[in-house]
């Protein structure tokens, strides 16, 4: 048993798991080309999962193990050792075969990703919660209602 497994409640994934997870997170949401948005691997997705959905960690660990096992089986090496194109092809193949594979992780990833300051700034909502600043919304052009006014009453008298 390794040191990381002994303190498993604080470190739910061992180093191998973490290396695979970082690769997968980057496959789900890579950094944007303009550099404005980080890779999901640079966002603390694991911390988020531990904080909010710790009960899913066993499933995540099993999926990471499955990826590694499939890498050994098909390529003869660990998943983390594969070149990027082979990793991508392997993940695509598993997802094609098992549509729900890592679906929970993908949902958790975007849930965590889209609360990151850098991401929220980049998509224009600001690195803050809605309250108390709120947002500006244009009132709208009421002259567009002119055809509706001209048509007149449409409800039935009763």
């Amino acid at each position, binding site marked *: 048993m390794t040191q990381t497994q002994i303190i498993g409640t604080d470190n739910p994934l061992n180093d191998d798991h973490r290396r695979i997870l970082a690769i997968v997170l980057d496959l*789900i949401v890579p950094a944007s080309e303009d550099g404005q948005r980080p890779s999901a691997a640079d966002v603390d997705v694991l911390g988020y999962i531990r904080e909010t959905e710790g009960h899913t960690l066993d499933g995540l660990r099993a999926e990471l193990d499955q990826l590694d096992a499939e890498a050994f089986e098909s390529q003869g090496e660990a998943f983390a050792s594969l070149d990027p194109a082979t990793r991508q092809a392997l993940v695509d193949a598993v997802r094609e075969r098992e549509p729900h594979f890592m679906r929970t992780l*993908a949902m958790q990833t*975007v849930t965590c990703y889209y*609360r990151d300051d850098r991401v929220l700034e980049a998509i224009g909502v600001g690195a803050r*919660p809605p309250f108390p600043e709120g947002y500006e919304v244009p*009132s709208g052009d*009421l002259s567009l209602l002119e055809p509706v006014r001209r048509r007149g009453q*449409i409800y039935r008298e009763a």
Partner: protein
Amino acid sequence: MADEVVDVLIVGAGASGAAVAWSLAETRMRIVCLEQGGWMNPAEYPSNGRDWERRAAKEMQVSPNLRKRPADYPINDDDSPIAILNFNAVGGSTILYSAHFPRFHPSDFRVKSLDGVADDWPIDYATLEPFFAENDNNIGVAGLAGDPAVPAHRPPLPHLPMGRMGETMGRGFNKLGWHWWPSDSAIITRPHNGRGQCLNLGPCNTGCAQGAKSSADIAYWPMNERAGVELRTHCRVREITVDNRDMATGVTYFDADGNERHQRAEVVVVACNGVGTPRLLLNSTSARFPNGLANRSGLVGRNLMLHPWGAVAGYFDEPLGSNFGPQGCCILSQEFYETDTSRGFVRGYNMQITRGGPPVGTARGGIAHGTIPWGAGHHDAFDRLFGRNIHLGICCEDLPEEHNRVTLDPELTDSNGIPSPKISYTLSENSRRMLDHGLARGAEAMEAAGAWKIQKAPSPIRMAGWHLLGTARMGTDPERSVVNEWGRSHDVRNLFIVDGSVFVTSGGVNPTTTIQAVALYIADSMKRRLAELFD
């Protein structure tokens, strides 16, 4: 306290109970309201924090069966394609409502006369008009006068911003020659009664941190308590008690510590919504009312109407800022509200234009539907959806059918051991056709507005059973109704029902403004008849 007889005992502090309490308070009668939930704290609503979307999905879950707050009671809705949604707290389901606030039409009260289906109400639009206005002023309704789809009225506050998305849909409706209008909204756009105006936070339907949304806890209860109404929270009523003269004597309830108590009252007012009210009446059995209180007609719990809901989403090329603004309030179209039998159904529906999804919601939806891929295409796909999508809700009038009903579940109970409601509901052929028509017209509207992608959700939407109506209907015939034309039980002369249960038909719009107008009308009727209230 236990032996004290209060003048009026109201069960439920939601939309209708709050309005009735406000109206009756001027009589200086001793009024007590029992509410099974507690006060919500707007400082704790999700939109105060960064993780608001995740928190909203869990803590402010719309289904009590999933939310499981201590104040919630389970509801067996397995036998219904539409789940029952509610919120249990001071303010009731208005804590989570979107505050879209369109009024019923005059024709909604004359369904039988005009269209040959269901029944006419014993009251009409003109009767309720002053109470619509009173409620609008009390809570602060925003809107634009002149909507030709409803009788003239002047909302007290300026309309909410339509934004570019509202203009886009407006142009689409104009292209088709269809009606549209900025919707009346129970959201204040100017300071009102000491409350701050809307800041366009967005997620009104997860609780308004600003307090601009006129949920009943904020809009009514401060006034009620200043006027002397006593509100007891965390008090869950088990049954209404009666004497051998068929008069209500009070209620038995569990207090916050789980102690069983009895509160005596001269008048009992039930305001627990279209599921909670029949549940309470059916749980109130006695030798004189073996089938439930006020149920000699056998209609308590029957004629449940739920507003089957359809949804269409449109995606646009240009940025619309559609992720900003009050989630459920923008514009509406009532082009297909009034009956036209050439459409293949009677009655009609409202089209409610709602804002686009927030960041996490957009991303999760995109992942789930395959419109946002993993990998290099993620950001472009997200950008193509976020702030550029518009949603259209179709609120179908649901006609009353006796087999659609609330009964008591033989096994399920709440945390106090009180039997829970069981829902039996099927979608009628008329509603099915109406939904299909609405989905097709919704898609047509999106296309006219310029959407490059249009998605019609499988409908009826299951998680859309907010509008709980008809289960203790109003009427002049005791054989065919539960309460009379001013809300008093035919069977129990000091028992009043003031929530959506008394609706004879459901209209095709979100009902809260009409629920509160009816509640204020009933309270006014009580005040006018105080000397002969029980005659």
